[in-house]
């Protein structure tokens, strides 16, 4: 376990009723890194994110988070505690609160004291309003602040959710297929947003869209059948025979690594 990493997963194994979704996977993140997690369907990418954010508890292995507050063993904490420690998670399908307005979504996502009593007495301060305005500008939803979130387009919902994650001010951001179902223009815009986000925090992205991954010259981790297949830059990954085989053998969209 290196000292400099912000998150290190060691030999993580996850089993669902005997089926091993992840087997002895190790992953270590440096602070400020943008890491892509790729692999064919069922490789265990999403499960890995589930482990990091506490949704799934591994059968064995350790996950330690070197937060500002010290080293924390993630596997022993509840989801809401992990979120509070500074690990934010965006799910595959946009999960925003449809009944609240865009602004209200951001308001409750904001990092703050999250006890019942505190939220009961909280009112929106000028500073908080400013913070929300900044975020609205960043995700490009300034004109929709009073729109009910359920009425937004798919792309806008994804951005809102990314905005909500940022309001949490997490140290590590876990994004599960942020551009799935987006048009090309929306994808580009999401890419820009991601560039902006990476400047300030560590980000892990699970992605199928290779074109999108290629635009970021960053580190890529390939998973296959619950195991680590290859770590490296996009160039190294593309030249790797095993990676090509996994994709060519299992998926029709072989251009993915082409």
């Amino acid at each position, binding site marked *: 376990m290196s000292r400099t990493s912000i998150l290190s997963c060691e030999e993580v194994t996850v089993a669902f009723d005997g089926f091993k979704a992840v087997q002895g996977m190790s992953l270590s993140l440096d602070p400020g890194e943008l890491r892509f997690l790729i692999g064919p369907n069922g490789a265990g990418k999403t499960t890995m994110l589930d482990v990091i*954010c506490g*949704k799934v508890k591994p059968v064995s292995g350790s996950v330690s988070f070197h937060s500002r507050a010290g080293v924390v063993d993630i596997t022993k904490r*509840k*989801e*809401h*505690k992990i*979120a*509070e420690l500074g690990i*934010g*998670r965006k*799910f595959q399908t946009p*999960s*925003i*609160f*449809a*009944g*609240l307005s865009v602004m*209200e*979504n951001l*308001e*409750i*996502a904001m*990092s703050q004291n*999250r*006890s*019942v009593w505190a*939220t*009961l*007495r*909280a*009112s929106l301060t000028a500073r908080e309003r400013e913070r929300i305005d900044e975020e609205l500008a960043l995700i490009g939803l300034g004109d929709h602040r*009073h729109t009910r979130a359920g009425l937004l387009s798919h792309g806008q919902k994804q951005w809102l959710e990314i905005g*909500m994650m940022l309001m*949490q001010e997490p140290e590590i951001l876990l994004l599960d297929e942020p551009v799935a179902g987006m048009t090309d223009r929306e994808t580009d815009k999401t890419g820009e947003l991601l560039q902006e986000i990476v400047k300030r925090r560590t980000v892990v992205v699970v992605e199928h869209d290779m074109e999108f991954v290629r635009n970021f010259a960053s580190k890529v981790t390939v998973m296959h059948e619950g195991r680590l297949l290859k770590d490296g830059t996009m160039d190294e990954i593309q030249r790797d025979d095993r990676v090509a085989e996994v994709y060519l053998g299992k998926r029709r969209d072989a251009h993915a690594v082409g």
Partner: protein
Amino acid sequence: MNGLWSDRKRLWLLLAYAGASAALFAAPLYLSDFRLNLLAKFLAFAIVALGLDLLWGYTGVLSLGHGVFFGLGAYAMGMHLKLNASGGKLPDFMDWSGLTRLPWFWQPFKSFPAAVLLGILIPALLALFLGFFTFRNRIKGVYFTILTQALVIIVTTLFVGQQAYTGGTNGLTGFTKLLGSPLRSDGMKSALYLATVIALIAAYALCRYLTTSRMGKVLRAIRDGENRVRFLGYDPATYQMATFAVSGALAGLAGMLFVLHVGIISPSMMGIVPSIEMILWVAIGGTRHADRRLDRRARPELCEERVVGGVPGDLDDFPGRALHRRDGLPARRHRRFDPQGSRKRS
């Protein structure tokens, strides 16, 4: 949604509220004693409905056990009134059952302030206790609802079975006076009516405050996506527990007022049927646009409904009300019934 429009809307809303409140406060001037008493009872029910709306409409948690919280509040006040009526002696039913001394848990109810406090606290704590074991273990939806029904059966069975301590099936009745004045006097009736109006307005203000606060937004968020709220760093269980407790406390308050107006409380008034009826009031009043106009509807409509539907059945007692109401219900009301209210939340 522009500012001017919402300002004007707000003004009308405020005027409507003021008008409704004035009409309620002035009711002793234009209603007969009988109708005033009936209205007072309906207003007490409206308080239960408010609390249920808060729980069901905002967090999506359906409780079919509010009869218990209502009943516990009612018994708290009933015990105080019974002790008043016995004038220092052992209440009659205890005597018949062979008790010689007042049980320890009856002692605090000698004092009126203590009885009022306990009538709110006991239901709130029971709700908190039940919520602690259910919400924290992520028992939700139908399973939670079934548990609340089980609670009803347990509590009513307990009350019926412990005749020496609770008055059994007959419940508590034969009350005479409150704070030294006879309950039947006109002055007392008007005072109790006004107390109910004030309690209702206070309960409404409380619910309004809760739902418009940031906490209210978190509650709606929990209804939309409990898991997502968890990953934002909130603990939904504590929010649900708090709401359940407030809802239980309001039902307790309503129960106390009910006893003062009706003069009797028995286990049948806190059983399964009344518990389900309470949910019907809310469903008919409409919870669909809980986020926007739930309270606004709950109050005037439920009251109105009681007046329209309840009066024809002069001596309608608790369990019989649903039938009376269906007879007396204008068609308009049927249309308003909105199955969306029970919509399953994702």
